[in-house]
C-alpha cells in the first residue's frame, strides 16, 4: 500500500470531504494561501477557492465562535487552531457554546463542526506551545474528542469527524506530521468515531495508548516480544465518548493494564481510563493499572530535558516489565 505522511493523510481527508460536500469550509490562521504552518491545508485554497478556504485574523475566540455560528446554519466548518495551547482562548466557544448548544436548546440545534488543533510536544517549543490537555474535554459532554495515532486513522477519523453532526475536537500530534509515514488505502474509507482499535494482539499486558504514544507503545511491544512478553496495544482514537468495552475486554483477557499518554500524569487521560477499568473490571486485575505519563511539570524547552520529559517506548516497556515481574 502507498505510504503517506500524517500531514498528507489529513490533507487528503480534507480534500475528499470538500469535494464530496460543499457545506464543508475551512478557516484558521495561515491555512489558505500559506497552506497551513504545517502544510495540512496545502493546495486547498487553489482547489476550492477563497470562499471555502479562509485565512483568519489571530483571534481564536472568533475562529471557534464563527464555527459555532456556521454550524448552526448547517455548514460543516473545519476550524484550525494552530496550537492546542491557543485553544484556551477559544474555549468559552468550544466548551460553553459548542458542547452545550444542543442540550440547552432542548435538542433543537445541531452543530456539525470540527475544531482541529495540534500539540507540539516533541518539537522543542517550550512551555507555551507544547500543552496537551484533551482530558479536559472529558468534562465537556456534547463534544466528541478524537486523537489519531497513525496516518491511516488520521484520514479516516477526520472524514468521519467532518460527517458527524456533533462538534468534534480533533487533536493531532504535530511531531508526527512529517516524521511519521504509514500505509493509507487509495480507496475511500472511514474510521468510525467512538471506537478504539486493537493495534496489536497480545496476552500478557494491555497497553492503552493514544495519539503520539501509540507508536511508542507499538515499539515497546516489539521489544517486549523479544523478551517473551506478549503485549496487546489498544489505541483509544476517540476519548469521548470512550470505547469502554474494547478496553475492558482487553483487560479481562490480559489482566494487566498500562496506560500511556502525553498528558501530565495528574488528571490525564490515563486517570479516567484507570478509574474506569477499576470500576468495570476490578476482579480481573492482577495488579494496579500503571499510568505512563509526562511528569506533572510544564514542558521544558531544552532539547534533552524535553526528551527526558516525554513518554517513550522505553518508559512504556519498563512499566510493562515491572508489571509482569
Amino acid at each position: 500500500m502507498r505510504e503517506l505522511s500524517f500531514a498528507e493523510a489529513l490533507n487528503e481527508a480534507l480534500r475528499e470531504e470538500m469535494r464530496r460536500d460543499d457545506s464543508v469550509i475551512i478557516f484558521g490562521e495561515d491555512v489558505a494561501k500559506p497552506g497551513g504552518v504545517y502544510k495540512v491545508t496545502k493546495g486547498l485554497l487553489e482547489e476550492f477557492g477563497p470562499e471555502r478556504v479562509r485565512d483568519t485574523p489571530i483571534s481564536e475566540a472568533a475562529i471557534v465562535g464563527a464555527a459555532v455560528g456556521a454550524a448552526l446554519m448547517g455548514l460543516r466548518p473545519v476550524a484550525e487552531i494552530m496550537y492546542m495551547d491557543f485553544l484556551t482562548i477559544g474555549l468559552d466557544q468550544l466548551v460553553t457554546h459548542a458542547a452545550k448548544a444542543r442540550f440547552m436548546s432542548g435538542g433543537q440545534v445541531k452543530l456539525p463542526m470540527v475544531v482541529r488543533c495540534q500539540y507540539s510536544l516533541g518539537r522543542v517549543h517550550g512551555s507555551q506551545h507544547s500543552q496537551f490537555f484533551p482530558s479536559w474535554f472529558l468534562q465537556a459532554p456534547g463534544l466528541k474528542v478524537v486523537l489519531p495515532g497513525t496516518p491511516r486513522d488520521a484520514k479516516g477519523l477526520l472524514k468521519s469527524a467532518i460527517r458527524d453532526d456533533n462538534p468534534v475536537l480533533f487533536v493531532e500530534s504535530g511531531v508526527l506530521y512529517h516524521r511519521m509515514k504509514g500505509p493509507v488505502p487509495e480507496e475511500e474509507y472511514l474510521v468510525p468515531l467512538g471506537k478504539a482499535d486493537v493495534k496489536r494482539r497480545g496476552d500478557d499486558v494491555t497497553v492503552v495508548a493514544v495519539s503520539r504514544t501509540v507508536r511508542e507503545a507499538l515499539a515497546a511491544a516489539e521489544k517486549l516480544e523479544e523478551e517473551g512478553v506478549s503485549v496487546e496495544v489498544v489505541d483509544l482514537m476517540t476519548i469521548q465518548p470512550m470505547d469502554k468495552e474494547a478496553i475492558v475486554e482487553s483487560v479481562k483477557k490480559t489482566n494487566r493494564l498500562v496506560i500511556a499518554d502525553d498528558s501530565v500524569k495528574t488528571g490525564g487521560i490515563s486517570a479516567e481510563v484507570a478509574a474506569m477499568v477499576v470500576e468495570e473490571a476490578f476482579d480481573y486485575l492482577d495488579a494496579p493499572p500503571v499510568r505512563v505519563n509526562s511528569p506533572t511539570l510544564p514542558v521544558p524547552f531544552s532539547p534533552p530535558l524535553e526528551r527526558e520529559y516525554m513518554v517513550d517506548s522505553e518508559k512504556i516497556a519498563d512499566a510493562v516489565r515491572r508489571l509482569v515481574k
Partner: protein
Amino acid sequence: MRLCMSIEVVGEVPVSSYGELGLGHDILVGMLRDMLLIRRFEERVERLFLEGKLIGPSHLYLGQEAVAVGVMRAIRRDDPVVSTYRGHGHALARGVPPRAVMAELFGKAAGTCKGVGGSMHVAMSVEHNIPMATAIVGSGIPIGAGIGLALKYRGEDRIAVVFFGDGAANTGAFAEGLNLAAAWKLPVLFICENNQYSEFTPIRSVFAGESIAARASAYGLKTFQAFGNDVITVYKTAKIASEHVRGGGGPAFIEFQTYRMKGHGVYDTAWYRPKEEVEEWMKREPISLFTSKLKQAGVIDDGKLREIEEEIKEIIDEAVEEAEKSPYLPFQELYNLVYVEG
C-alpha cells in the same frame, strides 16, 4: 493628525413622518401591542418570582421593549437572530408563543427548550429563527459572524442579527467578532442595547474611549446611533442599517440608548442608580412614549388600548396556567439531548 470616522446618528422620528416609513395604522398598533405584551409578560414574570413560583436568575426586558420590537419589525422573519440571557423580549417580539416562553421559565417540557435551557436561553427557537441565546456576555458576537459567514457563503439574502448589551463592548469576543465580520464583509447587523449598566456597574465607569459606536467604527463597521426608547426611531434605524447589510455593504452596528426600568435581575432593586437618572429616563419610557404619540396621531384611543390589554392579559393568564400544570421532562430524556445520534 485628526482621524475622522463617520457615525450616522438617526434622529427621533416625528409622528408626522410615520407615513413616509410605510407604517400603516395596523402596523403601528401591532407594534404597540407587541411592546405591551412584553411589558405585561415581564411584570407577571417578576411577580411569579417574588411569589416564589419561579426560581433561578431572570433578566427582565422592562424598559427596552422598543428595541426588540422595532428591530424585529425592521428585519425579516427569516433573518436569524442571536439573543442573550435578557431574551424574553426578543423571543416575544419575534413571535415565539408566550406559552412556550412561560413554560420554559417554569422548567417544563412544553418550553421552547423543554425546560432544559431556562430563562437565560428561552429565546432559542429554531422555528422562529433564533438558533442561539447565550448567557455569556459578548459570546454571541463571533457566533453571529459565523451565521453571517454561512449566509454569505450560500449566497442568501438573509442577514444575521445579533443582540447584546453595553457591557459586551468591553469583551474580547466583541473585538474579535467585529473584526472578523468586517474583515470578511459578512452580512451581520449588530445591535447594542446600551441600557447604561452592566449588572450593578455604570458602563461609563469601566469603559474607555468616546463611545461604543466609535469602537465599532474603528473595527471598520458601518455604524449608527439612535434613541432606543422610541420604537419608530429604532425601526427606522434598523431598517436603514439592515438594508446596508442586505445590500452587500458589509456588517453594520447600531448603538441604541435605552434604560432598564428595574434591576439587572429580578432580585436586584437597582439601589445603585441615582434617583434623578431613573426619573429622567422614566419620562421617556418606551410604552407611554409610543402610546402618547399614537394617541396624538389619532391611531389609537383608550378603548382600543383596553382591548389590547385584555387580550394580552388573557394570553398571559393562559400561559401561566398551562405552564403550571404541564409536566417536566423525564430525567432520562436528557441523555438524548447531548449528541445527535447516528
